[in-house]
């Protein structure tokens, strides 16, 4: 049989087979994305309006909007960002600008970052309950509030801190990538002019790396808006009549709202339009955030690629 196919024909057949199969796989992935987005937009658009974004749910979640969930999500990611960005940026600066790459501490930090990124999100939820609420929160209550339950229960602040731990690797990795892209000559020039290492980092390196820090922050916010498992036991609530103005309040959350509406609603069909519209809001938030992170990052890459050639 071998002689039937010439060498050239065989190579062409093999190439076509590989192109078609891998191309089909890529196409299938795109189709999956298109179906999910298409279905959500198709069913969600009907109920989506300014009123939906700006009013509270009513009539047992079958009418009204999602404003409290949007408010709670924003409050959560703001607190989370305040906690995670300084810690993440400092870690990236330390491992890239200060530490000796081969030192065992640097290696340990890297192993910790990689493994932190792989910890199941539900374990973060257990951690938030066991550490932030039962240990830190109860501890605060015992010392400051003579045992009254103020911080020793699920709350916005504990959910935000749990989410900050979850998103820490995202910020570190994005910041480090940006630091790596800053040309070494800039640091050398700064040091040669007599600047200390810290002055070099603050005045020369970090300004060049802001795009990367921004990327990491945006991606972290996107995770914080959609991740549900870590906040299940640490502060998210099904329905609240009041907005969470204090860190010890519970809060409503877009992702959690989707989960509750989809699984625990007494009348799924009546709530379906609201559910789809809520998913549409959540999906729009995460898409806008992820796309802007993508744009910021590719601009950063282009800039440095242009500078070095």
């Amino acid at each position, binding site marked *: 049989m071998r002689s039937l196919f010439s060498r050239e024909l065989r190579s062409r057949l*093999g190439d076509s087979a590989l192109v078609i199969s891998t191309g089909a*796989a890529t196409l299938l992935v795109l189709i999956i994305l298109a179906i999910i987005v298409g279905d959500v937009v198709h069913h969600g658009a009907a109920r989506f309006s300014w009123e939906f974004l700006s009013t509270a749910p009513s009539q047992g979640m079958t009418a009204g909007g999602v404003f409290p969930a949007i408010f709670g999500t924003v409050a959560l990611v703001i607190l989370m960002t305040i906690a995670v960005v300084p810690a993440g940026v400092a870690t990236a600066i330390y491992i890239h600008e200060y530490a000796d790459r081969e030192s065992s501490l640097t290696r340990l930090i890297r192993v910790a970052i990689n493994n932190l990124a792989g910890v199941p999100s539900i374990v973060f939820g257990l951690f938030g309950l066991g550490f932030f609420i039962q240990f830190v929160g109860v501890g605060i209550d015992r010392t400051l509030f003579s045992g009254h339950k103020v911080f020793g229960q699920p709350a916005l602040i504990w959910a935000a801190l749990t989410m900050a731990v979850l998103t820490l690797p995202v910020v570190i990795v994005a910041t480090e990538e940006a630091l790596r892209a800053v040309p070494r000559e800039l640091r050398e020039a700064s040091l040669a002019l007599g600047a200390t290492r810290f002055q070099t980092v603050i005045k020369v390196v970090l300004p060049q790396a802001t795009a990367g820090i921004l990327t990491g922050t945006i991606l972290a916010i996107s995770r914080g808006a959609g991740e549900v498992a870590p906040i299940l036991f640490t502060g998210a609530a099904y329905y609240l009549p009041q907005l969470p103005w204090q860190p010890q309040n519970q809060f409503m959350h877009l992702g959690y709202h989707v989960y509750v509406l*989809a699984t625990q609603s007494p009348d799924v069909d009546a709530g379906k339009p609201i559910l789809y519209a809520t998913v549409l809001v959540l999906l729009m938030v995460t898409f806008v955030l992820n796309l802007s992170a993508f744009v910021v990052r590719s601009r950063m890459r282009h800039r440095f690629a242009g500078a070095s050639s």
Partner: protein
Amino acid sequence: MSNGTAKASMPPPGQVNTVLAQVEGRVPRRRSNVPAWHHVAEVMIRVLALTAIAAIVLIFAFVAKEALPLLFSDNIHHEVTLRQMWTAQTWPGYDSAEHIWQPVSNIPKYGIWPLILGTLKVSIVSMLVATPLGVASALYLSQYASRRVRELVKPAIELLAGIPSVVLGFFALMVMASWFQDTFDLDSRLNAIVAGVALSFAIIPLIFTISEEAIGAVPRSYVEASTALGAARWQTIVRVLLPAASPGIAAAVALGLGRAVGETLVVLMASGNAAITSASFTESVRTLSASVAAELAEVVFGGPHYTVLFFLGTFLFVITFGINLMGDFAIRRMKRKLGVGL
């Protein structure tokens, strides 16, 4: 790339910081110019850099701490012991010893095997779908696609990665489950296949990204040598490129598996959550992660059920930690083998 020669004259990246440290040490500097807060800030950086290590240690310590009474507390041993969780028990009303997970019945039963089986079933389905799709699309984009196609597909896959798992769970619950049931005439709407396929949507981007990086890290000279020897393009890809990138692809699969085992919301919403021991993939399953998510809100604080759920969490942590360490190891080995810096 025109900067090949410039690169060769630089010291390897690992030495840069050491070189800078030497330069810094030799140049005399007037300390008075440096404000005091700089030193404070430097100390802060060093302390904050330990956050990741502290986090991983605290996570394990505080999750395991709540599970510890399972080993030592007599109160808990009245209801469940670690040994009972792992061995078949003879329950009233059953003929033979069986593994059963029924924590909220009159006689609570904490057999862990149905949950492990459920987790395995969902993970297997998701990996069987995600691995070929992720690796194949990485291959297509890096080898065949034009620049324009690449610039369109990459952000699309990034978007897929950005879809929150609760949305994937919602989609599986509302759309996929009905479609699968109607198409394949299944008894249970929510089952291991629906959950596994939905879960694979979360894992495809992960496998894609790491595989693409691994394929891109294979030195050009490998491909050029193969082409020069007269190999066709597909022969080069199948016999040279893929084997060279295989540790990276193995890492991608390992990290994908870690994600599959730990992912919660998709399985919580789409698997049906029935802890059934059977070999069938079209029956409902209950996974380890979904059990924790579904049950913890209603348990007595500090009681046997609470302790067992924290044990499940510890177990998940240890399993995923092990899988991720293996993935990490595979990546590092590949980088060393191909001579690529970190």
